[in-house]
């Protein structure tokens, strides 16, 4: 079975705001697959450009909302792909990251990629239900 997780707040519906042909998240086989999480305002969908640190805070806030609305949480993350715009910011990412996934952190890969709209970070995650 495959079930769509709707956006818990209107700003998190990237399809509605930006036309991306995607669901916010899909639950299947005991897992939740989230679409790439971006630093947008959860109420308005407005882009919240900033430093990698500020963007990561917004993303983790959004991710928390999305996972909790689906009955999961940041503590139940299984795998994280963290895309950053420049590997020089790796340590900066880690400092924010630790604040949100302190105990028993999930499997993770970080790499450098071009992220939409010139954002500095994007998180692509799988969580347990």
């Amino acid at each position, binding site marked *: 079975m495959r079930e769509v997780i709707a956006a818990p707040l209107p700003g998190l519906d990237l399809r509605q705001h930006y036309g991306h042909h*995607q669901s916010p998240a899909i639950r299947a086989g005991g897992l939740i697959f*989230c679409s790439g999480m971006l630093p947008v305002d959860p109420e308005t969908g407005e882009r919240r450009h900033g430093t990698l640190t500020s963007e990561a805070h917004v993303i983790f806030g959004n991710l928390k909302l999305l996972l909790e609305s689906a009955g999961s949480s940041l503590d139940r993350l299984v795998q994280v792909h963290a895309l950053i715009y420049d590997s020089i910011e790796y340590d900066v990412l880690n400092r924010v990251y630790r604040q949100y996934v302190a105990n028993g952190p999930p499997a993770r890969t970080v790499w450098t990629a071009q992220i939409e709209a010139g954002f500095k970070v994007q998180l*692509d995650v799988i969580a347990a239900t």
Partner: protein
Amino acid sequence: MTPRREIVASVRALDAGSSFGRSVSMVVRGGDFLFVSSLAAVDPHSGEHVRGTTASETRQILTNLEHLLEAAGSSLDKVVKVNVLLHTMLEAPNMNEVYARFFPEPPPARTVCGARLPDGAKVIIECTALA
């Protein structure tokens, strides 16, 4: 008992293992899921790389993906997550427009990013689907 991990027979010409001599299975079943290797635009008959626009490569890849999934007993409407890699994020709207025509409602979760791709490919797509 079903094996926990199984390499699923796929459309022969799309098999990267035979076409490119790489150690890659195109579709692997694990648990409830099918994991599909990243696909570049390949002619399904000749196995040759097809170079085109971002839109045409996306169309070719998703056509091949549809066949691969069906050969493995799944389908596009069972896809749960797609990762799209583009040679530049400036082309994201061109990919998105073609992409939207392939995936039935409601679409899977998706992540799109720009990356340096091999062999001059403009698009690469990987996915996870329910078996």
